C-alpha cells in the first residue's frame, strides 16, 4: 500500500474518531450550572481532532501532502510477524506461564526478522532463547519480586 493512501485512511479514521469523541463528550455534559462539566475538554479535543484530520485529508487529496514511498511486503512482514508472535505469546501465557514459552517467543521473533541463519547466528539465537527466561526470572521474579504467572510445572 502506498503511504499516501495510508495517510488518507488514517486521517479519515481520525476524523471519524474525533466526531465520536466530540459526540460522547456532549453526552457527558458540556456545561453544568454555568461551570464546565466532564464533557467540556472532550468536546474541544474531539472537535480539534476532527477538523485537523479533515484538513490533513484535504491536503493529501489536493496533493499538498504526498509520499513517494510505499509500505512493501518486505517491510511490513517482519513488523506484523513480530506483533503476531508477541500476541501468540500473550495468548499462551495463561496456560503455560510466563517463562516456559519464552524460548519459543525468541525463536519466533528471530525467525520473523531473519529467515536464513548461519551456524554462528543459530548458536547466538539458541543461547538467547535459553538465557532470556533465566534472566527474566532472576531480574523480575527474584530481584524485583514480581509475581509472574506460573505454568503447569510451577514456573
Amino acid at each position, binding site marked *: 500500500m502506498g*503511504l499516501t493512501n*495510508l495517510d488518507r485512511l*488514517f486521517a479519515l479514521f*481520525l476524523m471519524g474518531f*474525533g466526531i465520536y*469523541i466530540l459526540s*460522547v463528550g456532549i453526552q*457527558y*455534559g458540556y*456545561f453544568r450550572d*454555568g*461551570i*464546565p462539566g*466532564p464533557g*467540556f*475538554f*472532550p468536546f474541544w*479535543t*474531539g472537535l*480539534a*481532532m476532527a477538523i*485537523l*484530520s479533515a*484538513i*490533513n485529508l484535504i*491536503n493529501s487529496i489536493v496533493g499538498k*501532502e504526498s509520499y513517494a514511498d510505499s*509500505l512493501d511486503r518486505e*517491510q511490513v512482514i*517482519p*513488523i506484523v510477524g*513480530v*506483533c503476531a508472535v*508477541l*500476541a501468540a505469546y*500473550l495468548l499462551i501465557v*495463561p496456560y503455560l506461564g*510466563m517463562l516456559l514459552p*519464552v524460548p519459543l*517467543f*525468541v*525463536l519466533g*521473533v*528471530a*525467525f520473523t*526478522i531473519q529467515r536464513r*541463519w548461519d551456524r554462528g*547466528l543459530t548458536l547466538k*539465537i539458541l543461547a*538467547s*532463547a535459553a538465557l*532470556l527466561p533465566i534472566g*527474566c526470572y532472576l*531480574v*523480575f521474579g527474584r530481584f*524485583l519480586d*514480581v*509475581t*509472574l*504467572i506460573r505454568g503447569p510445572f510451577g514456573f
Partner: protein
Amino acid sequence: MTTVGLLMDGIVAALAFQNLLAILIGVTIGLSISVLPGVGPAAGVAILLPLIVGFEPTVAMAAMAGIYYGGMYGGAVTAILLGIPGDSPSVMTVLDGHPMAKQGRAGAALGMNVFASFVGGLVGLILLTALAYQVARAALAFGPPEMTALMLLALSLVSVLGGRNALKGYTALAIGLWLGMIGLDPMAGRPRYTFDQVRLLEGLSFPIIAVGLFGLGQMFAALDTKLTKGEFRAKYSLGSMFPTWAEIVKCRLELLRGALIGFFVGILPGAGATAATMIAYATAKRFAKNPEEFGHGAIQGVAAPEAANNSASYAAMIPLLTLGIPGSATTAVMMGGLMMVGLQPGPLLFRDHPDFIWTLFGTFYIGNLVLVVLTTLMVPVLASIIYISRAVLFPLVIGVVAFGVYSINYALFDVWIALLFGALGYIMLKLDYPAVPAVLGVVLGPMLERGIRRTLIASQGDLSVFLERPIALVLFIGTAAVILGPIVVRLVRWSRGATETKPAQ
C-alpha cells in the same frame, strides 16, 4: 546555604553506592542504545520505565538521566566511524567527523567529540544549577491561570516545532489529550471512554503508552532500515583520542558558542538538541576563518554540534524540573517516571524536596565525568553494537519490555495495550505524526483540564479570568503567536504572490 554549598552536599550524596551504580547502568544503556539507528534515548528511557517503579526517586532519576546523556555522548561514535548517526542530534557530526575518520584522523574526531560533549555538558550543568532554583522560585507565584497558559504555550510550541507538519503535530497532540482523558473524570468522578472495561477506570498508565509509542514503535520502525557493512575501517588508538592543546585552542570559541547556543535553544519546548546542533554548526561555519573546510573534516565542525547537544540536554531539565513541563520526548518520558516514583515535577519540587534536587544535580555532574571515561573506553564496543544481528537483539529487548510492562500492574492486559500503541507509534512515525506532542498530551492533558476547569469554576464560567493576570496574558499572546504566526505568514505570502502575478497577466 549558598548554591555552591548545596551543590557540594548534593555531589557528596550522589556518591552513594546505589546512585553510582544507577549512573553507571544508565550511561551504559544510553551509550549502547545511542548507536542503534532509530532507537533513541526516549525509547531507552521508556523501556527502562517499568523497571524503575520500585526504585528510590534519586536512583530512578539518575538511571533515566544517565540514559539521556549517554545517548547524547554515544550517538556521535558511529557518526564519526561509520558515517551512520546513531540519533538525530548526531546528524551534524557526520558532516565533518566522518571525513576526518576517512582522512585517518578518527582518533582526533572521537577525542574532540568526547571533549566537546564534556564541555557542553559542564556549561549546561553550571547554567542549570545557577538558573533552575531562580526559575522555580519565580514559578511559585504562578496560579492556575498562569500554569494553564504556560502548558498551552508549551504544547503549541512542541506541536509546531516538533515535526515537519504542524497540523499533524496538533493532531498527535489531540490524540494524546484524548488518551489522557480515559478513566474517571478527575473532578466529577464520571467514567469517560472506558468502553465498559473495569481496567480502564484508573486510566491508561503513562509508561505503557510511552513504552508502546517510543519503545516498540521505534523498534518496529528500525526493522525497516537495512544496514550494510561498509568497506571503510577507521583506524584509531586510545592514545589518539586525547585532543591536543592546539586542537582545544583552535576550537575554544566553537565549544563555548556551541554550549551556549545549545543551552538557550534546548530550554525551548519542542526545539530540542537537534535544532541546537544545526544552529551551532551553522554559526561555527559562519564565523570560521576558513568556512570552506567545513564538510571536509574541520574539527570545529565536530566541536560545535557536540557541545550544543549535550548542553541542550541539560537545559531541557529546566522546564521539566522547575515548571513540570517537559519539552522533548525524553524529558516527557522522564516526567512520567518521576510521577511513577511519587514526585510531581514543578516549582514545589524545589521547595518540598530540595535534597532530591541537589542530589540529582550531583548525579548529573558525576554522570558527565563518568561518560568521558566510559565513552572513551567503549568506542570499539559501540562501533560493533551497530552490527549485532537484530534477530538476536530484538527478541531479547521485546521480551524484557513485555515482562517490564506486565510488572507495572501484574496485568497481561497492559502488554496488549503496549503492543497496540507500538503499532500506532509505527504508523504515526511512517506518516510524520510526531509522537512527542502525543506523549506530552497524555502527561499534561489531565493537568491542563484540571487547570482550566478549576479556574472556570472559581470564576463561575467567566473566561476573562485568564486574561486578567499579566503573566497569563503574555503567555496566551505567545501561544496565539505560535499557533497563528505560520497561518499569517502563509496568507501574506499568498497575497503577495497573487499581486505579483496580476501585472504579469
